[in-house]
């Protein structure tokens, strides 16, 4: 038995139970943001009256890997597979608390299809924290305790994106993502729960980057290179979409075989093969690489490409053989 006086005066052994007019209760979780373990949000990140919250989050979706955050929207249902708290029952019938609840959530994804599933299966091996947001656009996070205003993502043991389940005539094709939260997350999601009620729609304002497929449209030469740039499973041609905004040296990164940057003398819309027609001096019998500029650099172009609230764009690194 604990000492009566110690219990009553211990600041951590009570909580005031009055019900206030405004209280926080979370509605359905409809999205998540995977954030690096070191990602933090605080009053500096929010800016005065939260003025920079949206722009900072949008910028974070385009940053280099390691700093980038990955929003996933369109959760249509939750299967709560959480393990309830465990109690040990003793021989005389008394019960004693043994193990705290452990959260485990599986969400059905409504949008993105198999393309998104395939991209996200890479997270099965990665180590990220997670923020959730609910249908009131409230971002759920946890207090770090380092400073009063510092928040981070919840700790996750496992992010698992299952393979897709075929449509069966009654159910549409199934896409699911599971977050098996860590033991630490139980405290993070309860005693240390933090939240930010956003004044913008997270799903439409904070979007993940989309893949751009860079491909060779025709055999290159020592002076010419022909590159196709498409998204949406090849249905959207970026050169047609962005025109002169993308037909410029500042929108691409061209490298020689030794990794040094090759600055082209001209970048134009391809008259014969479509896509980009890049003119420059390319060394014969070498393999050069082509890629679009980084999502951050593309969004900073004028006119911008893939700037908020649109998705950022990131291409593959294409090897171009110079005959």
């Amino acid at each position: 038995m604990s000492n009566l006086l110690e219990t009553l005066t211990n600041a951590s052994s009570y909580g005031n139970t009055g019900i206030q007019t405004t209280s926080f209760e979370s509605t359905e979780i409809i999205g998540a943001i995977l954030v690096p373990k070191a990602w933090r949000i605080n009053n500096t990140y929010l800016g005065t009256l939260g003025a920079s919250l949206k722009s900072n989050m949008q910028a974070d979706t385009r940053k280099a890997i390691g700093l980038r955050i990955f929003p996933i929207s369109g959760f249509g249902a939750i299967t709560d597979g959480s393990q309830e708290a465990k109690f040990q029952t003793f021989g005389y019938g008394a019960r004693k608390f043994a193990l705290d609840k452990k959260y485990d959530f599986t969400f059905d994804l409504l949008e993105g299809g198999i393309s998104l599933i395939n991209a996200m299966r890479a997270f099965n091996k990665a180590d990220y924290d997670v923020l959730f947001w609910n249908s009131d656009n409230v971002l759920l996070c946890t207090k770090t305790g380092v400073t009063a205003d510092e928040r981070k993502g919840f700790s996750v043991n496992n992010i698992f994106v299952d393979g897709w389940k075929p449509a069966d005539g009654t159910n549409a094709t199934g896409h699911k993502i599971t977050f098996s939260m860590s033991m630490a997350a139980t405290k993070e999601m309860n005693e240390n729960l933090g939240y930010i009620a956003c004044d913008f729609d997270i799903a439409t304002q904070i979007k993940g980057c989309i893949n751009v497929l860079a491909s060779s449209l025709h055999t290159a030469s020592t002076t010419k290179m022909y590159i196709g740039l498409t998204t949406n499973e090849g249905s959207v041609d970026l050169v047609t979409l962005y025109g002169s905004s993308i037909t410029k040296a500042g929108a691409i990164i061209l490298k020689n075989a030794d990794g040094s940057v090759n600055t082209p003398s001209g970048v134009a819309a391809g008259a014969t093969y479509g896509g980009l027609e890049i003119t420059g001096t390319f060394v014969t019998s070498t393999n050069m690489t082509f890629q679009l500029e980084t999502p951050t650099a593309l969004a900073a172009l004028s006119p911008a490409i893939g700037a908020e609230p649109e998705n950022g764009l990131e291409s593959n690194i294409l090897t171009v053989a110079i005959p």
Partner: protein
Amino acid sequence: MSFEVIHISDLFATVVQRMRPTGTILSIVKIGTTNNYTVTSTLPNVVKSGEFSLRANDYVDLLNVSGVLIKSYQVVLVTSNSFVITDASLPIGTTWRSQAPYYEHGHVLEVANTLISKNDDASLKYQKYPLVVLIQDMKEDIGKKTHDYSNPNMTIFIATLTDATYKAEKRKTDNFTPILYPLYKKLLNEIHYSRLFCTFSPKLIEHTKFDRYYWGKEGEFANSKNIFNDWLDAIEISGLILKVKSQNNLIKNQIH
């Protein structure tokens, strides 16, 4: 705890407000020696392909940095990223917002009377369409779930002016394709993204859609008698059962 009262008509006023084309003003430049001014907008463009956009003769509001109305203008001309307005002195504003689509709610007869009263005003008579109408009264089941305020069953019309002599194909190309269908799509999007209702995707908002080519009182072989005393084409959305969420009054953009 205070008892929560939510007016569905107010929620739809917010939804329709979000449907109105809007943009940030880049510059306002006088055209020669005329009283016309070109208002150039930053992206997204004034005219967006496949979406309901600002059109010539529409009314547009110029707003200050706080979103407060400075002055309204009738648009003379529209290009992809600018529009032209007329004023005796230099117009000012940081953002613009189209007045259309307009919004009314109530009994059909009451809405009709409101629209008729606008006809007496020289400018208001051009500030009626396209129109989103929320038909009242509606039943609301309350108290079924903690997070839900009610589950109203609603009927909404999206209507725009037409001509009695138009044939169906002309109505499709002039009204349904450029105006009514984009507004219908936008309405479903904003019902979802406003987060005022519990929905999971614009595509999964269950309702019955009814294209009304010349919307009037139904006769045996054709519609007759105008509903709002104007010739209208419309889309009727009925059986729209939405779960209205209880509203929180959490302080926005602040760390808790």
